[in-house]
């Protein structure tokens, strides 16, 4: 219904419209009183809040996270052994992390059987002491036709599993922008569900970012064959061997624009 139509109606119709709207307002009020939750606020917290306020809140939270990380890193650098005191050390650039993270751009997954999500982009920034990924994504509840656009600030948590090196996304700021169709009362629970409950377990459903390295490694020693025809005729052969070794993660440190990981050789032997 548009305003121009309203303005062109008669005073009588106008009065009827006013009563109707007043009644509607009262209904909303009664519903608001009777509902213990915050059916409007929750979506508003993500969607209709002052964007400037939201931006400032995000900025403050990100700075807090960065400060905590920088403090830990500074303490580590002041204490303990030199950072490269390890059998193997790797430096990964922020650019490489972004190239790996970009493999997840535009992919679609599922939070549950009714809620899918689509990752628009993941951008990683490495600061002294913290790695923060900004994930832009959309969650969509198919049953209720509810879209939740999200911006998530995630800490990157690094781990080695089965020799593979992963960065897992752990959201600490989730900023939903709700888009929904249908009546407020019918979608309120769904939005709340998506925004508060399901997104809290979103990190379990998000795929990790895999690095192009494998630390559970093998060291091939090539077979060799030498023919000796001087003095004593003989053939010297060295069979191929495979040395297997495992590495243990010593530490992961995050510096501005680079990620450092240190590993030590844990076990080495010939593969039988």
């Amino acid at each position: 219904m548009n305003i121009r139509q309203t303005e062109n109606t008669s005073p009588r119709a106008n009065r009827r419209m006013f009563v109707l709207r007043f009644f509607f307002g009262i209904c909303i009020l009664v519903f608001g009183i009777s509902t213990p939750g915050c059916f409007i606020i929750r979506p508003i917290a993500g969607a209709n809040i002052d964007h400037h306020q939201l931006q400032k809140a995000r900025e403050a939270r990100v700075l807090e996270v960065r400060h905590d990380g920088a403090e830990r890193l500074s303490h580590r650098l002041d204490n303990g052994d030199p950072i490269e005191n390890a059998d193997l050390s790797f430096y990964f650039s922020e650019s490489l992390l972004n190239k790996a993270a970009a493999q997840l751009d535009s992919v679609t997954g599922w939070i549950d059987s009714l809620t899918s999500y689509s990752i628009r982009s993941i951008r990683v920034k490495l600061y002294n002491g913290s790695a923060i990924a900004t994930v832009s994504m959309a969650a969509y509840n198919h049953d209720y036709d509810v879209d939740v656009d999200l911006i998530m600030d995630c800490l990157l948590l690094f781990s080695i599993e089965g020799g593979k090196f992963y960065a897992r996304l752990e959201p600490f700021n989730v900023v939903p922008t709700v888009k929904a169709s249908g009546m407020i009362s019918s979608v309120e629970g769904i939005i709340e569900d998506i925004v508060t409950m399901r997104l809290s377990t979103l990190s379990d459903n998000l795929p990790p970012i895999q690095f192009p390295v494998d630390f559970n490694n093998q060291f091939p020693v090539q077979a060799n064959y030498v023919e000796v025809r001087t003095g004593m005729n003989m053939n010297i052969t060295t069979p191929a061997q495979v040395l297997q070794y495992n590495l243990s993660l010593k530490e992961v440190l995050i510096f501005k624009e680079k990620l450092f990981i240190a590993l030590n050789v844990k076990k080495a032997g010939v593969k039988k």
Partner: protein
Amino acid sequence: MITRSHCEPLFGEAIFSMSGRIKLPRKIASFATTLFMFGFIFIGCGSSVNVPSVEESEKSIARTIPKLDSLDRLIVVQTQSLPKGFDIISHTRMSAINTLLNGMTNAGTNDIHFDFLATRPLWKEEKSTFGINYTNYVDVDTGRLDVDLKKFQFTGMLNNIVLADVEIEGMGAIRVSGKYTGITASAAPQVHFYLNEQLQFSISTADSDYIRLTPLPRTVMLKTKVTINLLGWSIPYYREIPLQSDDLIKPVLIPSALRSEIVFPLPAAQYGEERLEYVKRSLDFTRSTVGANNNVLEYKSNISFIKP
């Protein structure tokens, strides 16, 4: 609908439409009702709104930035010597490679096999007794022995040259036959091999997965000693057999831990038990360089993901 674009018109329209034709008291009444309604809901739900005010956030930002800047400055000073400029830089300590090589040298005593072929003769001498000329000779018929790689250790890395000590030693029996004073006989003498040399390796990137250490060509001596006793004829056979180092030792491939192909986890496109599905991604390595200095092997490269 409760999107920003829907939510605002829903309530905004009620207010705006009142501003058109209706009288002021009604407008005020309606506006007050709406205001009250919003106020009630906002107050009632205030506790669940976790977003701090702009002022609170700005205070927090103003408090944090100087502390963060100060920490950043300290960290930058402490880390300015760290390498940069490539997607990946790896440092492998020589001691780590030796730990791996020790795993091989300590594994057993049958690292290298020597297969003896017929050598005719291994040794011979022309003799004459009472004007009768004859030849004493010994042939190697066959034999096989296993030799232990006692040591293979890198001892230094400097100016992109890697030094290594190699020591092999083994002892075993071979079958020999021959004639002594015209009498044919055979024996199984002991043979002893020993090699202890220092080798040099040059380094290069084999491919993405390995760093190649290639032995520089050099003649090394395999010391061979056989004590043959044939019908009382004692023949001390000792020779240094020249071998080319690049024949004896094949290039050593040091794993870089990098993979030119990885299986990348992606979310499963269809809902099911499996939340992830895996796709292969090939990687392209460019500007790869490798260096060896101060007993550290350094590998640098830039990496691109090749999308299928």
